[in-house]
């Protein structure tokens, strides 16, 4: 795996070249993609669907899904134009102190268990399960929103603030074929 997720993000924000795009992906299209690519990791399907549902809840529309198959890995990207995570989390009274904090630091928090804007039990599991999946199958992920991102590679988190507000949520997942059961 040569290109860093930060580079993938920067290139993706400029051009979607090289990616297969499924606009406003539905649950049915996601399942068909999973079957067509013969992916056998069911936890990945569960995570992608949970992230898709998150987009619908916050953006009120299906997100766009992108994928690229390289020689030994896949890159998946979920993009939506919904509210940023930094706008949602401070609505949880227990996380009200996150208001005004740097986007990257709030995104890092969102990868922890049960961190959500509602604070209800059982919520906030989509990004947490993504983080867990990345650990379990030795993958990489990056979550970008507003003017920051957090990435996870080899169990190490990197937080970085961007110079611009990207005005969308972008989640990048990079997994080698072995992790996908291929």
């Amino acid at each position, binding site marked *: 795996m040569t290109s860093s997720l930060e580079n993938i993000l920067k290139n993706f924000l400029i051009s979607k070249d090289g990616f297969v795009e499924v606009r406003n992906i539905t*649950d*049915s299209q*996601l*399942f068909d993609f999973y079957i067509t690519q013969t992916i056998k990791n*069911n*936890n990945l*399907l*569960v*995570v992608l*669907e*949970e992230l898709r*549902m998150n987009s*619908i809840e916050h953006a009120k529309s299906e997100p766009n899904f992108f994928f690229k198959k390289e020689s030994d890995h896949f890159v998946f990207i979920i993009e939506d134009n919904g509210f940023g995570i930094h706008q949602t989390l401070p609505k949880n009274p227990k996380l009200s102190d996150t208001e005004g904090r740097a986007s990257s630091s709030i995104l890092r928090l969102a990868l922890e268990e049960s961190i959500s804007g509602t604070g209800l*039990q*059982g919520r906030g*599991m*989509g990004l947490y*399960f993504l983080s*867990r*999946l990345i650990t379990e199958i030795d993958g990489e992920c990056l979550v970008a929103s507003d003017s920051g991102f957090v990435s996870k590679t080899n169990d190490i988190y990197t937080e970085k603030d961007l110079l611009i507000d990207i005005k969308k949520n972008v989640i990048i997942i990079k997994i080698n074929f072995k992790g996908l059961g291929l």
Partner: protein
Amino acid sequence: MIINLKEHSGEFCTARKNKGLSQVIQILKMALEKNEKITISTTGVKILTPSYIDELIPPLVIIFGSEKIKQLVSFSPPLTGFILEQIDRGIKNRSR
């Protein structure tokens, strides 16, 4: 008793606000009140998410207790991965 999830919630049991969810909960409640064993069949379901499961099982744990749910409710085929984990988490959180 067997509940076929696909018949009530369709092939995609994913959303917390799935239309058939309340119907499934109602059937489960009635069976649990009679101490009846229930198997929830996920045959034909293409995607099942932790969110859907979190809306289904924990409310029953609150009403009937975790022991009764563990004894009487099972899934066929058995759940695995993050979905199974969410059930365990839901039972643990609601049993405190």
